[in-house]
């Protein structure tokens, strides 16, 4: 039995990361945990409509501005539960933590004695504010647990070009 931690941000690329992770851990008995780390509430402000796992987001348009922590926590729980339903893995655990994403991912993986961490290389949504690459580099530097990086592109441009070539 493997313990696998899949770290997800709130970005459309998270779907690819989650699907990749689950495809690798479909052996019976594998314990999969989906983790989302809440950094700053300001990062959750977006006017974009960007569906993830068929879920369009949790921000209430009637309450503009930076959301409160309770609102983010509730939304994030809902997001992870929707993700779990999308992935069709009923035994999957979900975990929401608050703090520095890199540190929390390393800590959570150590606490659950994870055999593998799966995370994306980039976040398109937060690229300007929280470069996922920085978090990925931090995790690679600070854990001895194997880390599988799902190479999600910055903009998806590279692949669009490759596909057309």
């Amino acid at each position, binding site marked *: 039995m493997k313990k696998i931690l899949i770290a997800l941000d709130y970005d*459309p*690329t998270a*779907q*690819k990361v989650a*699907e*990749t992770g689950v*495809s*690798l851990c479909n052996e019976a008995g594998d314990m999969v945990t989906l983790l989302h780390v809440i950094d700053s509430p300001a990062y959750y402000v977006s006017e974009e409509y960007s*569906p993830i796992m068929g879920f369009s987001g949790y921000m209430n348009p009637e309450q503009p501005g930076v959301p409160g922590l309770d609102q983010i926590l509730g939304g994030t729980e809902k997001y992870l539960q929707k993700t779990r339903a999308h992935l069709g893995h009923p035994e999957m655990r979900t975990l929401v933590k608050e703090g520095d994403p890199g540190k929390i991912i390393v800590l959570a993986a150590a606490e659950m004695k994870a055999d*593998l961490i799966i995370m994306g*290389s*980039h976040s*398109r949504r937060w690229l300007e504010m929280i*470069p*996922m*690459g*920085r978090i*990925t*580099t931090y995790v*690679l*530097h600070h854990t001895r647990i*194997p*880390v*599988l*990086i*799902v*190479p*999600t*592109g*910055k903009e*998806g441009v*590279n*692949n*669009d070009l*490759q*596909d057309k070539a």
Partner: protein
Amino acid sequence: MASYKSIMADILSTTMHIQEQFPELTKFIPEMPVTIPVNIDQEITIKSLKEYHDSLKKLSEYYSMQHKAEPLPAKT
């Protein structure tokens, strides 16, 4: 033709090799130019994963040549 799982295992193995042997290179991993399709309606293909793995291997091999470090372990 390699399977999806075997390529992912290769990617993990090469990433771990870089993580252990060349930690100073890890900052380049998120910057690798070859990536998988991220649009929801695009499938992740074996081809894109293999291209990503090849680019990771090249990074590791080139760096190990320059620094005379241990090469990637032979595939079993």
